[in-house]
């Protein structure tokens, strides 16, 4: 069985030496202009934190000098199946590699500041206090939601592409931005400037362009 890390162009630079990151040598399975970066594996790796980070560091190493489409963690398949996927989706995969070349993904989350986390407990039981508390909570929630919208509206035009994730409790902004590798520092500086009262912004990355890969229709 093959463990799939990423899909690249077959004319990408030679594979780096992953040291101990991959748990074994990496291999390229070439199919025309496409190549899959794979390792040999009999079973999928455990989904523990250390393994996930090792996988992430390996992809960091790979994306340093090539355009790639990261595979979802834990993708284990036979060679025939992988060749069939590369063949059937060749046009989509090549177009994605072209569109995403030279780009990385940055994540921006807007959180309620620590210590001001969205209240989760039941409001006071009595009528007046209950109404006042509900009103306060709703006002605070709406103010932060509006702040999150404004921040995303300001950041999206600075990126080549942008996508929003679902809001979570205490986290009104979850967004990903596709940014040219040369623009990462400038984009981070923009995030620092975009800070909004009542929201703490945390920018992470660069990540491989996970959020901007076209989903494959079977």
């Amino acid at each position, binding site marked *: 069985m093959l463990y799939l890390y990423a899909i690249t162009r077959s004319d990408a630079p030679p594979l780096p030496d992953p040291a101990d990151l991959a748990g074994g040598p990496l291999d390229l399975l070439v199919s025309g202009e496409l190549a899959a970066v794979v390792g040999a594996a009999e079973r999928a790796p455990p989904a523990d934190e250390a393994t996930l980070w090792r996988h992430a560091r390996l992809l960091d190493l790979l994306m340093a000098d090539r355009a790639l489409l990261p595979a*979802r963690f*834990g993708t284990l398949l036979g060679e025939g199946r992988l060749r069939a996927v590369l063949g059937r989706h060749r046009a989509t995969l090549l177009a994605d590699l072209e569109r995403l070349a030279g780009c990385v993904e940055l994540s921006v*989350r807007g959180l309620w500041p*620590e210590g001001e986390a969205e209240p989760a407990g039941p409001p006071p039981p009595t009528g007046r206090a209950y109404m006042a508390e509900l009103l306060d909570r709703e006002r605070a929630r709406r103010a932060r939601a509006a702040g999150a919208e404004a921040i995303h509206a300001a950041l999206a035009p600075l990126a080549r592409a942008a996508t929003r*994730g679902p809001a979570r409790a205490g986290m009104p902004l*979850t967004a990903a931005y596709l940014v040219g590798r040369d623009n990462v520092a400038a984009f981070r500086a923009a995030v620092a400037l975009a800070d909004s009262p009542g929201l703490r912004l945390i920018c992470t990355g660069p990540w*491989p362009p996970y959020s901007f890969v076209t989903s494959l229709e079977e």
Partner: protein
Amino acid sequence: MEQPSLERRVTLLDLLDRILDKGVIIQGDLTISVANVDLVYVGLKVLLTSIERAEQMRRLAGDAGAPDQA
């Protein structure tokens, strides 16, 4: 008690949201068991919310005059 910083926790959440849910997804594959993934996720969500809540309670306790190490 040593708690990972908010940045670290968010970075881990960003990692999970990406490598477990996004990228090239080949349908019908033999992939890691969903139970495992869910466990990592559930553990992290509990971590995120419980630490935020613990922080909140700690501050409230601090305001009430309890000793505060931080």
